[in-house]
């Protein structure tokens, strides 16, 4: 038997694309080593190492912005605006979580140094999920993310609630993973490849069996990812787990897992967009349920973490609306509104949960609404920040949440999903009730305890709160520049996932897809090029833009303030506006 036929040329690797994940994961390793040798009293060294690692990872992500999209390592990893921004969000979530975690964990008497490496790996898992179109990588990323989260959720071992939430999350998560894996297997069976863009090619064969396999494969994957993103009816773990897990973990989970899951869902659905006739009605129903049901239940809740758990489910519904609008008419509506929503959501979530940790003291923690009575008198800053975050969650103008919701609403209307837009609006109104309940607790109601919970506001927490608040206000201030970057001034970068050039429909396990991203062939695949996309901090000479300005869609021409862009911001884009 001649084994040489199976020899595979090593794939070319664009290490820069992989660098952020490698950085975050290896920071986790370093943090674990420090944990082994640290003096038992303090986690400071771990935290600073982690923060530096995350900072460098964020830097490497930011520096990549503006470089051409493409995938590397045989299609295992991908770089495009969505992946970069979502990875950046995940890194940011982890960063801010670390800032307020230490004081909280000490107050709760669960000062495990292992928390930091686990969170880092979890982040790495999420980053892998959002930056791949390979189903195997997606699954592994999801497992890295999830298993770390299971452990972190059960970190407060003295408490049965924490353990309960961990075991619940674990069992149901394993169940969901099985669905996902089965779906991946079916898709692999239908296409002979794990790469998502093969779905479209297999579908184009118009073969009855393949089509059925694909439909079921995507269906199973929907269930699995729906669980991670907590879509109704796969949401029931969320409130219990959110309530039981330590608050910093909940914040991290609510932000990171949601971002990663939605990112993965986006990849899968846009890979399977040709089949949208089958799953679109289904997802519309799911979106309606996901927006409505948790909002109704949340009105009855008395525990802030639980309320926020339901709120995060409802937010997943809003995000799903944006996603569906994009998938309904991909050439008209970009993904940037959805990503913007995710950014704003992540900021608010981290900030909000950070503020909740204020109520921890001496191993105990109060997260009932009544525990926040009189917060205004105890911590005016915290109460003020809370109002801001709640305002963003409700969607009050000037906060990021307002523009995010408005953008999604607008997209839904433009995509013809008016029903979803209406349901979204109604649900925003309903959600005011319980959100304002939180404000009421913090401001109006009187302190009931003789000795209030929580003492001072630790500096890390203060920093997190203020930074998130600045972010929430700031992103609304830089709404258009952000969206301009996200839409890449080249809508193709979003609507057509950058396809690999050399893969054929008969690809099997041993065939290789090598497409080094640095030298895309503009003649073959215009989607790989980003004409004129160079943020101001990036010297445009770095990557000479491939001159194909005629490929730009109508979005492009409307993206410019007519003739007024003599400023210094991204408006001064080299690409002409018409």
């Amino acid at each position: 038997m001649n084994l040489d036929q199976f020899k595979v040329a090593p794939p070319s690797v664009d290490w820069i694309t992989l660098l952020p994940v490698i950085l975050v994961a290896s920071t986790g390793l370093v943090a674990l080593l420090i944990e082994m040798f640290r003096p038992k009293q303090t986690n400071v060294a771990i935290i600073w190492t982690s923060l530096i690692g995350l900072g460098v990872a964020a830097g490497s992500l930011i520096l990549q912005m503006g470089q051409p999209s493409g995938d590397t390592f045989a299609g295992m990893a991908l770089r495009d605006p969505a992946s970069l921004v979502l990875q950046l969000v995940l890194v940011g979530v982890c960063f801010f979580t670390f800032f307020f975690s230490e004081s909280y964990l000490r107050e709760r008497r669960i000062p495990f140094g292992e928390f930091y490496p686990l969170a880092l790996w979890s982040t790495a898992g999420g980053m892998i999920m959002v930056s791949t179109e390979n189903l195997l990588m997606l699954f592994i990323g999801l497992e890295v993310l999830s298993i770390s989260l299971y452990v972190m959720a059960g970190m407060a071992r003295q408490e049965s609630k924490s353990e309960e939430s961990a075991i619940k999350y674990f069992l149901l998560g394993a169940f969901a993973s099985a669905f996902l894996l089965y779906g991946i297997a079916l898709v692999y069976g239908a296409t002979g490849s794990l790469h998502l863009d093969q779905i479209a090619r297999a579908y184009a064969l118009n073969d009855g069996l393949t089509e059925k396999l694909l439909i079921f494969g995507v269906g199973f994957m929907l269930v699995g990812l729906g669980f991670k993103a907590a879509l109704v009816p796969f949401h029931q773990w969320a409130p219990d787990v959110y309530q039981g897990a330590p608050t910093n973990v909940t914040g991290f989970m609510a932000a990171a897992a949601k971002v990663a899951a939605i990112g993965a869902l986006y990849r899968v659905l846009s890979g399977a967009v040709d089949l949208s006739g089958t799953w679109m009605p289904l997802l519309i129903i799911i979106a309606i349920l996901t927006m409505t049901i948790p909002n109704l239940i949340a009105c009855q809740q008395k525990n802030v973490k639980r309320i926020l758990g339901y709120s995060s489910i409802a937010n997943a519904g809003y995000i799903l609306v944006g996603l569906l609008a994009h998938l309904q008419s991909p050439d008209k509506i970009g993904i940037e509104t959805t990503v913007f929503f995710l950014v704003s959501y992540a900021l608010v979530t981290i900030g909000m949960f950070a503020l909740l940790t204020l109520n921890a003291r001496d191993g105990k923690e109060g997260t009932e609404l009544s525990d926040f009575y009189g917060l205004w008198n105890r911590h005016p800053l915290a109460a003020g920040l809370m109002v801001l975050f709640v305002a963003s969650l409700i969607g009050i103008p000037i906060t990021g949440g307002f523009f995010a919701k408005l953008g999604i609403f607008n997209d839904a209307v433009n995509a013809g999903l008016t029903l979803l837009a209406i349901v979204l609006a109604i649900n925003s109104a309903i959600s005011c009730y319980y959100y304002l309940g939180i404000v009421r607790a913090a401001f109006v109601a009187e302190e009931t305890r003789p000795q209030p919970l929580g003492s001072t506001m630790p500096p890390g927490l203060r920093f997190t709160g203020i930074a998130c608040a600045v972010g929430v206000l700031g992103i609304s201030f830089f709404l258009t520049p952000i969206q301009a970057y996200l839409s890449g001034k080249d809508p193709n970068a979003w609507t057509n996932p950058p396809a690999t050039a050399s893969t054929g429909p008969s690809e099997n396990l041993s065939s290789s897809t090598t497409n080094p991203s640095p030298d895309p062939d503009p003649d073959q695949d215009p989607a790989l090029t980003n004409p004129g996309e160079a943020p101001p901090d990036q010297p445009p000479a770095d990557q000479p833009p491939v001159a194909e300005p005629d490929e730009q869609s109508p979005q492009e021409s409307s993206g410019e303030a007519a003739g007024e862009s003599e400023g210094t911001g991204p408006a001064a884009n080299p690409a002409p506006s018409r």
Partner: protein
Amino acid sequence: MTSAQITFLILAGIAAISAIGVVALNSPVRSALVLVVNFFVLAFLYFSLGAQLLGITQILVYAGAIMVLFLFVIMLLNLGNTNSAIQKKDGKPLIGIICGIGLFGLIASQIILPMGPRGQTAGAAPGYGSPQAVGYTLFTNYAWAFEITSILLLVGIVGSILLAKRRLKS
């Protein structure tokens, strides 16, 4: 009958008998041991089909890891020769039987009347799925996934230690 067929019949017979044994034996430990036999025989079946790597994996993962875990659990719980599970009259055996027959029917139906095209796909090239071939692929195109899987295992180890280690004095 060719030697291959004879080998298959012997192995299949042992597999079927051991499978019945898993359900029929009262002692959990014996059940588990018979299951080990079943796993090994399955691995041999794979070998006889030329799927060496699959066979090795079967032994490593199922017979090695999973069965050891089973036996640990059984011994830790000290179940012994209890009959309680069987004596209890409820619907579980019935449901189990129905599910089993259903699965059997499903597989059998695919053998008799397959949904997809039958026998048209050409057999894999010789050496396909061999350790060497998989190795080539695994350490080239799938190296990134492989590395991340190592992180996954590390997470599992760290996590289990974190959750299981000695309680802190508070």
